[in-house]
């Protein structure tokens, strides 16, 4: 399966979406997609690296703990607004990370917690929205 790129013309903000097969071999494609969007938005070198890093962590979590759609895809959407660049990583699972305890219950939970911690340090805002329909992680970097 190959990633499918599409431009979302339904909203006012420039937005681009990548439907990605939920496979580990696609992580590099997700990083490239994020890095190119960040560069086009005008983030500096470190900003582009951090944006792509956080997107990689969110996509990794979606592949490991989430569920793809019926075709086997997860969706990565990047939206450019005047003050911020936001990436939404959406899967169809409802995994809730047990990250609040002093000691994580398992290696998988510990790694999930570490990934989330890195996303929070590298990005200006991280929101996780879980509903019965799935999980979306929103990662935002503010334009300096």
């Amino acid at each position, binding site marked *: 399966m190959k990633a499918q790129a599409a431009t979302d013309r339904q909203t006012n903000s420039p937005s681009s979406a990548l439907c990605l097969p939920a496979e580990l071999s696609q992580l*590099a494609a997700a990083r490239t997609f994020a890095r190119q969007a960040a560069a086009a938005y005008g983030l500096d070198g470190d900003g582009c690296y951090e944006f792509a890093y956080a997107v990689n962590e969110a996509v990794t979590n979606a592949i490991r703990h989430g569920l793809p759609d019926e075709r086997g895809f997860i969706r990565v959407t990047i939206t450019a607004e005047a003050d911020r660049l936001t990436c939404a990583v959406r899967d169809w699972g409802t995994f809730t990370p047990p990250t609040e305890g002093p000691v994580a219950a398992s290696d998988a939970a510990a790694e999930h917690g570490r990934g989330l911690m890195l996303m929070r340090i590298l990005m200006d805002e991280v929101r996780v929205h879980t509903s019965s329909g799935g999980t979306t992680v929103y990662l935002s970097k503010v334009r300096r």
Partner: protein
Amino acid sequence: MSAFYITDETVDEAVAGGVGVFAAGGEIDYAASPLLHEHIAKYINAGTRHLVIDLSAATFIDSTAIGVMMAAVGSLHEACGGRLAAVCVHGNVLKILEISGLQAAIAIYRTREEALSALALVA
């Protein structure tokens, strides 16, 4: 973009128990971190006491690879009181090692020579 790779290096038998060195380069993501884990286990199972992972050519290291290295700290210590060290020069990779907490758990050196001399002094 650069693919992940591992290269075996010399094992310095002059130090008791031996010091293993290998280089892991390119982008170390969740597709690659199981290979990193296997490689570390191979060295520990072979009786290597201290291990140096040379990340000089690594441009990316994700949280799962950090987790593999964190686990290796404990494994080396339990096996025979060994230590893990890393060599890293890439600015963004260094930043990830720092903010992930790995830098607090292992020593990180700018060159392989510095790492080897430091481990040679460990009794």
